[in-house]
């Protein structure tokens, strides 16, 4: 029977972490050598944790599916990373960053965790700089910051539009250093397919070597998942194509609770789908909405070139619907409004699934040069992908799945409900509530990996100094490997006609339509029926050419898609039970008269943590009540 114990320490918010840390048990240096730790995933969270644990002297085994840890999807983050340094003397503080994150998350995150993330943000910036990460600087040589995501202070550190790349490469270099020293052994090109539980504790994983197809057993005293989010469930998203839910999902199926799966951030300004074979959406910085005006034709199905549509036949729907905020309404509102227009038949482009973002007026007012200075590199990127230069005609944009706030439930130690199994970075649920604040994902991943996990995990490992190596011939390893093998054989044996991608695309469409930016009871229930039907079709018609004992990308894809059916169902289940609108979760039934989200703090100020009950069985809901002792709950208003 699963029990949620968040282990939030008592005391004033600013002292919780430092007091708690002092009480955590240590493992002495001689004993650390006797302890093995598995880290799965080598993005900012995983590579940070692996290198920090390696520096401490543990034996670390790190795994990634890419050919190199440097390619983990943290690399693609653009905007920046927040820290409460107050370098701009604009009265920023840890408390302000904490407060902004709680509010941005629409009051659905845990206060203690969020405060700690804000607290270690300063250490993260110090460490990155010491490692040589080239953040932007001013002429005096100090680090530059910018404001981001509508907050009132300037606390976002950045490296052009490639902050994620530079932070990840810094972390990758520290990981490489430990690999060279031999404290970390790197296992690239591995998919983690199951977690192994011995006597109730996580003691290892089963992986598939992606080149040879071999199934491998790896044992350790603790297992850390840093496997990212599940946003690729939508098929079309801003994520890398290899990103997937399978590692976290195998943990869920072994008993780890999965929290708030329906909380997924949809970003409003991505380049839309241009052809039927597209499987990836590229983000265009949100800053473009500062000068661009969003519109669609006033007439349904108007297929004229945008420059031929006269002013009076254009509907600047954001300015019309939200006169106070206009084109600068928050992400969720902008995304939902674009979807509404396109669904109603007013969308632009051949597919009708995009809206215009027009710089005509800004260029007329400020001159081309000024616009070029601000957005030149973004315009070039847009041209590279679409062949259109936005100086001459409007950009086309559309919302895209971007980040998952939900994930494996963890306590204050970042441990899941399975003892010895940890989840860090985007793979856990803890810091972003129902909506993530801009520039806080790099910050949280690095904080978890470098500064939080290495402290909390030692308290757990202190009991394992006499355990000795965990043998991989234990029955639990046998069973786990056998079930993975059977699953692969089962999926291979279907010998159907349709590809994994074609199923993924249809699955993504179902979720996008029924569990995307706007949800209602009827749609969610329909979505679940459609998912069941498609899943049945998948298991009777999936086609996987080639052998499972070889480099087989179709098999890799099929195994991931098989899990996405189950992820999708849990997302719908979660969205259905949450009878309120909050952050990225918008229920049609729960909105104000003007169409704003209507939160219900009296009944829904909780974390929804789901417990697996077996295939096809309805998962069990557990609630962790959120207590707000240091922040007052308020309505998020844009008026």
């Amino acid at each position, binding site marked *: 029977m699963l029990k949620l114990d968040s282990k939030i320490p008592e005391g004033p918010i600013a002292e919780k972490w430092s007091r708690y840390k002092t009480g955590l048990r240590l493992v002495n240096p001689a004993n650390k050598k006797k302890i093995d730790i598995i880290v799965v995933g080598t993005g900012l969270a995983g590579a940070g944790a692996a290198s920090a644990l390696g520096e401490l002297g543990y034996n670390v085994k790190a795994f990634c599916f*890419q050919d190199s840890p440097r390619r983990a999807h943290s*690399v693609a983050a653009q905007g920046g990373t927040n820290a409460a340094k107050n370098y701009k003397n604009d009265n920023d503080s840890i408390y302000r960053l904490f407060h902004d994150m709680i509010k941005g998350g629409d009051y659905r995150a845990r206060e203690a965790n969020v405060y700690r993330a804000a607290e270690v943000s300063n250490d993260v910036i110090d460490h990155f700089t010491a490692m*040589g990460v080239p953040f932007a600087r001013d002429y005096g040589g100090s680090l530059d910051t910018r404001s981001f995501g509508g907050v009132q202070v300037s606390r976002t550190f950045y490296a052009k539009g490639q902050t994620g790349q530079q932070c990840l490469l810094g972390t990758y270099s520290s990981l490489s250093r430990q690999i060279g020293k031999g404290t970390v052994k790197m296992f690239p090109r591995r998919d983690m397919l199951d977690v192994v539980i011995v006597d109730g504790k996580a003691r290892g994983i089963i992986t598939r070597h992606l080149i040879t197809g071999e199934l491998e057993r790896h044992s350790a005293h603790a297992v850390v998942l840093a496997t990212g989010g599940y946003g690729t469930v939508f098929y079309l998203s801003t994520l890398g194509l290899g990103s997937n839910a399978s590692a976290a999902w195998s943990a869920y199926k072994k008993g780890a609770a999965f929290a708030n799966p329906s909380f997924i951030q949809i970003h409003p300004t991505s380049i839309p789908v241009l052809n039927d074979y597209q499987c990836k959406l590229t983000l265009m910085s949100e800053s473009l909405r500062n000068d661009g005006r969003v519109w669609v034709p006033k007439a349904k199905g108007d297929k004229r070139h945008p420059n031929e549509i006269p002013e009076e036949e254009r509907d600047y729907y954001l300015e019309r619907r939200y006169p106070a905020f206009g084109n600068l309404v928050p992400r969720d509102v902008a995304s939902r409004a674009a979807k509404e227009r396109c669904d109603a038949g007013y969308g632009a482009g051949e597919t009708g699934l995009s809206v215009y973002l027009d710089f005509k007026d800004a260029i007329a007012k400020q001159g081309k040069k000024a616009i070029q200075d601000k957005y030149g590199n973004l315009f070039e990127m847009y041209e590279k992908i679409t062949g259109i230069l936005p100086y001459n005609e409007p950009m086309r944009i559309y919302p895209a799945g971007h980040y998952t706030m939900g994930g494996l439930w963890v306590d204050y130690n970042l441990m899941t409900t399975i003892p010895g199994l940890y989840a860090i970075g985007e793979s856990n649920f803890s810091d972003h509530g129902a909506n993530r604040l801009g520039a806080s994902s790099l910050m949280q991943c690095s904080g978890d990996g470098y500064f939080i996990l290495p402290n909390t995990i030692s308290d757990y490992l202190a009991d394992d100094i006499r355990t000795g190596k965990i043998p991989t011939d234990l029955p639990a390893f046998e069973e786990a490997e056998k079930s993975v093998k059977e699953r692969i054989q089962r999926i291979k044996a279907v010998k159907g006609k349709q590809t994994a991608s074609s199923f993924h695309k249809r699955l993504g469409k179902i979720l996008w339509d029924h569990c995307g930016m706007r949800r209602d009871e009827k749609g969610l229930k329909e979505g679940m029926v459609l998912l069941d039907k498609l899943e049945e079709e998948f298991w009777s018609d999936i086609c996987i050419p080639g052998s499972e004992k070889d480099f087989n990308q179709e098999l890799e894809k099929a195994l991931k898609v098989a899990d996405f059916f189950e992820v999708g169902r849990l997302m719908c289940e979660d969205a259905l039970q949450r009878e309120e609108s909050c952050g990225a979760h918008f229920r049609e039934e729960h909105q104000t008269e003007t169409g704003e989200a209507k939160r219900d703090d009296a009944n829904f100020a909780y974390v929804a943590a789901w417990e697996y009950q077996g295939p096809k069985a309805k998962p069990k809901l557990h609630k962790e009540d959120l207590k707000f002792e240091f922040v007052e709950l308020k309505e998020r208003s844009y008026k």
Partner: protein
Amino acid sequence: MDFTLKIWRQENASSKGSFKTYPLKDVSPEMSFLEMLDYLNNQLISKGEEPVTFEHDCREGICGTCGLYINGRPHGPARNTTTCELHMREFKDGATIVVEPWRASAFPVIKDLAVDRSSFERIMQAGGFVNVNVGTAPDANAIPIGKLIADKVFDAATCIGCGACVAACKNSSAMLFAAAKIAQYAMIPQGQVEAKERVDKMVKQMDAEGFGFCSNTYGCEFDCPKGISVDFIALMNREFFSSKVCKHKE
């Protein structure tokens, strides 16, 4: 658009590969090069053939996973563009397109168009870092670095580790890759302490992996999707010579 594709097919590292010709019809000019290959693979699968193996991930030019040798150029005809950012409108309708993996002995072929770039990993592990442990960093603003230097450091640090520089070079030299990392650290105070050891170890590893030397054709700079300058190779050479002059001890 219609194309004739000549694609390198190779079952595994030890087998002998060869070109296979695939006619492909109705390609949209909006497709990226990789989407065009997805489209081809879909047709191959439906005919019961094995799809072409090629590697990719972010599909927005930043992860460095994809890298194909297209018509004799790494990442194809467009400059400052990775394979995933390359679009079919860059090609003429009816053209024949030759697609190969990176060709270098330090990048052995794994299957079809996928190569093993772990030699880059070992160069990084030899010295591509600053020796700083978690928890020992001073305040971030304690180390001032002028904007002009910082911008130059960024230009070096922007390498995505794709390997196009090696594929472009007739000597299969990895100098641009190694130089970008060495220069990044050589230009900032954080990297000074161990600068001499770093350049020595990384160059040694580069040689051990079987990468060739630089003969100043600048093909690497021309084909680098991030436009990294060969000036950094000059900087690396200077660092290397000075490390020898200083006769540091290992």
